[in-house]
Structures are given as C-alpha cells and as structure tokens.
C-alpha cells in the first residue's frame, strides 16, 4: 500500500508567457492533512486545480492513487473525480437548488438510492456541518460561512478519498474559522481521507496540518512535517512564516528604475 496518495513529478505550468509552476516535485501522504502554503500568486490554487485536473500541465506527471490523471480522457476523468471532493473558495453552490438539493445532487446523479435513503444521508451530512435546520434555504439566503459549510456537506456526501479545500479560512470570522478547523480535522479522522488545504493563513492551517508544502516563485521551497519546515533556515520560508514585507519575495513588482520613471535623471 503506497504511503503517498499523490505524487507530483517535475510539474510545469504556464499561463501565457508567465511561468506559474516551474518543475515542482510534491508528495502528499495518504490519510493526512497536507497544507499547501505560500504567498499570493505563487500557484497554490493552480496546483490544486492541476491535481483535480481542471487544468492540464505543460509537462510533468500527477499520480493520484497510482493513476496518472494527466493522461486520462474526459470520461475517465469524471470517473476519477467521483473519488475527490473539493471545497471552493466561493462555495460554488448551485444557485437554482436549495441547500438540501445541493447536497443531494451528487447522490442523485451517481447512485440509484431510494429517496428515503438519500434524505437520510443528506440530513446526516447537513447535521455534521450544523445546517440540518437550513435544508430548505436557497444559497442566496445563506451567510458566507453557511455557504461554505453547505458546500462542505456536498463535497463529502459521496465519502471521497481525497478532499481539497481552497482557501477555506479566507474572509471568515474567528468563530467560523474555529468551527471549520474542527470540521476538517473531524472529517479527516472519521472518514480516513486524504485532505489538502490551500491557504495563506499560517496559524490556522498549521494548527491542523500533519504535512506542509511551501511554494514560492513557482518552486517548492519547503516540504515535510510542519515543525521541520518552520525550523528550516530557508530565507523564503522564513519571510513567509514571519510575514516580512520585503525579502526574497520582493515588495515591488518588477519595474524600471525609479529615478528614470519619475524623469529625475536630468534635473
């Protein structure tokens, strides 16, 4: 039995002329919570979308449970995705369906379960995220935190083997952040699934992570147990973890000489 659920090998991805990921190698252990961290724009969400094959890499391979998902055709990919759940930053609930129907959606399209069983399963998942009473509300009637919790219930309703969380804590109040941390940990333990959290909230994410990958400038600058990564002397890692405004990740976007730009050279 492999101990790594996902193996990423020499992965390259570019967006037009801009290189987002430049030959990264990442291993994500099975059954653990892995945090993918790094400054904004470093390619964290892109990596998540590559793992779920919503994007195709320019080069390199991504093996999920020993299957190279970059070589799958459209139909095979949809089969593989049934083993994955993803919590989008926006929640991405279907706006024309109620909370109940959103959570029931994966069951209705992928199973032939009788209606009473679908109802019980949906209510169990909604109960797990604390929204059993909100089953009849429409997505427009939910707060940001409730939207994410409903989306989480939908993501776990098929009991996936891999759950991906895209910036789950961003823009949420402390109560919801605490609640979500508790939920992520509990889901990981009870379902024994592999979890990936993409985030730049260092304290919140590290509190529940078993493994950590730090990206910067399209490369992996730190990977391993959180404690080992935190104690590394890599300048990128230290700048990110300590929140220093300038360092290897520059404060300024590349620009021409400041004096030249202000036409001060002749004065």
């Amino acid at each position, binding site marked *: 039995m492999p101990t790594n659920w996902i193996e990423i090998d020499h992965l390259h991805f570019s967006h037009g002329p801009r290189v987002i990921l430049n030959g990264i190698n990442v291993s994500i252990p099975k059954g653990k919570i892995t945090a993918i961290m790094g400054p904004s724009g470093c390619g964290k969400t892109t990596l998540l979308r590559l793992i779920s094959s919503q994007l195709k890499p320019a080069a390199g391979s991504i093996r999920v449970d020993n299957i190279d998902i970059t070589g799958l055709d459209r139909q095979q990919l*949809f089969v593989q995705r049934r083993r994955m*759940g993803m919590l989008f930053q926006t929640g*991405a609930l279907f*706006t024309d369906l109620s909370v109940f129907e959103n959570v029931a*959606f994966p069951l209705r399209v992928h199973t032939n379960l009788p209606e009473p069983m679908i109802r019980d399963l949906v209510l169990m998942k909604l109960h797990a995220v604390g929204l059993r009473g909100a089953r009849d509300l429409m997505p427009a009637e939910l707060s940001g935190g409730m939207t994410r919790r409903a989306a989480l219930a939908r993501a776990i309703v098929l009991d996936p083997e891999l759950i991906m969380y895209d910036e789950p804590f961003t823009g949420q109040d402390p109560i919801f952040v605490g609640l979500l941390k508790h939920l992520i940990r509990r889901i990981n333990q009870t379902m024994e699934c592999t979890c990936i959290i993409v985030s730049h909230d260092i304290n919140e994410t590290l509190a529940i992570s078993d493994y950590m990958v730090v990206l910067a400038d399209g490369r992996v600058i730190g990977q391993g147990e959180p404690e080992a990564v935190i104690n590394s002397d890599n300048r990128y890692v230290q700048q990110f973890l300590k929140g220093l405004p300038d360092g290897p990740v520059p404060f300024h976007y590349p620009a021409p000489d400041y004096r030249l730009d202000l036409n001060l050279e002749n004065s």
Partner: protein
Amino acid sequence: MLTLVTDYLQQLGRYGLNLAAGFGRAGLVFWHALWGSPDWRAGPSLLIRQLYFIGVYSLIIIIVSGLLIGMVLSLQGYTVLVRFGAETALGQLVSLTLLRELGPVVAALLFVGRAGSAVTAEIGLMKATDQLAAMEMIGVDPLKRVIRPRLWAGIIAMPILAQVFNMVAIWGAVAVGVNWLGVDAGSFWSNMQNVVEFREDIVNGIIKAFAFGVIITWIAVFQGYDAVPTSEGISAATTRTVVHSSLAVLAMDFLLTAVMFSTD
C-alpha cells in the same frame, strides 16, 4: 515602415489564429454537448425546464411583436394596394411576407435578445461563480448537464415560436385589414389559401426557423461557456451573443432564401 508592416501582419496572423481557435472550441462544445447517449433519468426534466425558460418565457414578446408587425404590415400593404384597387391581394402579401421572411427572421432576432442573451449570461455567471467547476468536480460533465438541455430547448423552441409569431401576425393583419379597413374577408382568406403552398412556403419557413434556432443557441451557449469569468467578460460575451447571432441570422437568411426561392 517595415516594422509597421510586420507588426500589422503579426496582428492579422494572431487574429486569424484566435478566430480559428474560437471556431474549433465552439465546434468541440457543440460536438460534446450533442454527442453520446441521452441521460434518460434527468434529461427529460432538464429539457422541459429549459423549454419553459427559453420557449415559454419568450412567448409574450413574440406574441406582442407578432401582433404589432402584422398590423403594421397590413396597414402599409393596404395603403399601397388600394391605389391599384388590388386591396383584395392583402392576404397574399401578408401571408407570403410573414411565412417566407418576416416570421422566422423577426422571431429569431427577438429570440436572440430575449433568450440568447439570458442563456449566455446564465452560463457565464455559473462559470464565474465556479458552479461549472464544482459540477466537474462532482464528476458531472457540464456540457451534458448544462449545455445540452439549453441547446436542444433552443433548437426545439425556435421553429414553434416562429409559427406562433406568424399566426398572431396574420391575426393582427386581419384585425387591421378586414375588421378596420374593410377588405373583404372572403377575398382576404381565399387569396391567401390560393397562393400559399405548404411545401414551398410553410415548410421552408420552418426549416429557416430551425436553422436559426441551431445557430442562435449554439452561439449563446458557447459564448457563455467560453466567457472570461469576470463581470466585464460576461458583459462582453452577452454583447457578442446578440451581435454575432443577429448577423448570423441575417446572413443565413439570405443564403437560405437564395437556395429555397431562387427561380432558376
């Protein structure tokens, strides 16, 4: 000077490549959406829902416009024909104009504005709010679940709407020509029945409306699916749907008319 020319050629080449890539993507969307076995479990209810949104919701604008256009056509036709004492040919004029040209074309242009833009905006917003990505992650192909029912609904609804338009417009023409301006009802209807041929006029009109339904809905779903997922991107995609579909309808109408009604 040389760099200007090469720059221009480069831009032209890039534009050509983007255009070809766009046609390729549109073809793929069409192919993937229509290809494959139908989903008998969810398919019919999704299709009926879209027929309701795309077809039934367009009825009001089609009926009101049809009525007014029939009335105007009758009034204008009467003022010209009466000079030659030929006002009894009003039924013939109105019916042929509507069945062959105005019915399918005006109904199609109204359909673009009412349903085409709505479909583009809806799909574009679903993309911008990650709903399409979420569907893919659940293991459901949005081309089958979202695009296919809308595409079929547009293709089915358009010919029906065009016939409703014709019917109401003729009724409007009768109201103005016969009931108001006093054209003899018997002459109006018998002239119409004598001159309208089922195969030549009615079937050709339905074929036109069907072709317009395909092209409009294809453009609308593709523009939504291919939209840049930002507010500007969705606004631009909706505009493109209306402009491209309208021009495509008019160009296609000319081609079909040339093929169907040329006297050679």
